[in-house]
């Protein structure tokens, strides 16, 4: 359990890194999959099928100790989906500055939500 918590914390910590270019936006997809993987390892045991990262977070939301953390994880799932949509566009070409800013804003929101969600590990 301690190892799974450490892995989750490490990936969430990485979510604090800014997105300042198209390549960062593409790279963040891997980070989101790592987030989903570490959360799944703790709450869902394994990722089944080809579930997207946001769907994994929604599933894990149902396994939270209380409603507060369920809501946080559901909101995080929406941010993950939004970020993945922008990142997909980046795989076709350079994002324009407003798209990069938008991606970074979503990332920042997701980071804040996940930090709040991490609070449960200290309770």
């Amino acid at each position, binding site marked *: 359990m301690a190892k799974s918590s450490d892995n989750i914390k490490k990936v969430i910590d990485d979510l604090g890194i800014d997105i300042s270019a198209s390549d960062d936006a*593409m790279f963040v997809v*891997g980070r989101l*999959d790592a987030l989903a993987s570490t959360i799944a390892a703790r709450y869902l045991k*394994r990722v089944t099928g080809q579930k997207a990262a946001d769907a994994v977070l929604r599933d894990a939301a149902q396994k939270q100790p209380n409603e507060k953390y369920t809501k946080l994880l559901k909101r995080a799932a929406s941010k993950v989906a939004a970020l993945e949509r922008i990142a997909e*566009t*980046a795989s*076709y*070409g350079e994002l324009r500055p407003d798209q990069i800013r938008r991606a970074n804003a979503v990332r920042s929101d997701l980071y804040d939500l996940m930090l709040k969600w991490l609070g449960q590990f200290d309770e």
Partner: protein
Amino acid sequence: MARAIRRIKIGIHGSIGPERLSRDLSNFEEVILFGSRAAKVGRRGSDWDLLCVGKLPPRRVYAEKPIGSVSVLDVIWLPPEVLHTSEWLGSELANHVKHFGVVLRGAGEWREKAVTSEVAVVRKVRVISVRCRVILQYGSYLAPKYLEQHKRLLRRDLQRLDLLRKNVPVPPSVVLDDAWSSDANTRIAACETARMDLLTSRAPELLNLDYPAPITSAV
């Protein structure tokens, strides 16, 4: 090019075919089917890849329903003014659509001008570099399904890079997959192309590829 490009996945119910797509997407000036369905190598459950050209993105003219329904339309949307830019005409996607696309609506005349450009090669090198970094940094965290997916995407992009460098049109993913599993020379070529650039040089190792000896017809 991403200045205008947008990718939208739309889940729709009922049977899908060129006629229905052409009818349902009549608000677009141009609709081109590409990918495995267009190349007639699609499998059951394959997405319907569509290039839609119009002033408004599909979200506004085509009802979006939840993914998980019968068929998935994977729509790339472009506004008309982008079609004749060098960025679009030199892109990997434009060149793919030129060679494999089936025009369902509109003329698709721009396709005659599409070419493989150095920009597309450079872009692909960067994409591969990002994919390598993901596996290097998060490989040990990723669930097996995700790791497998990231490796598959890396492998396909290596194959695409090899074809782009050889000025060969990039076929649908299913064709790349078949070539990879059946043709040792494809794997050799991918290793060779990866080693042409420092940014991509670790890809073979990440894919657990031993650098195979070239296949020769004579001993």
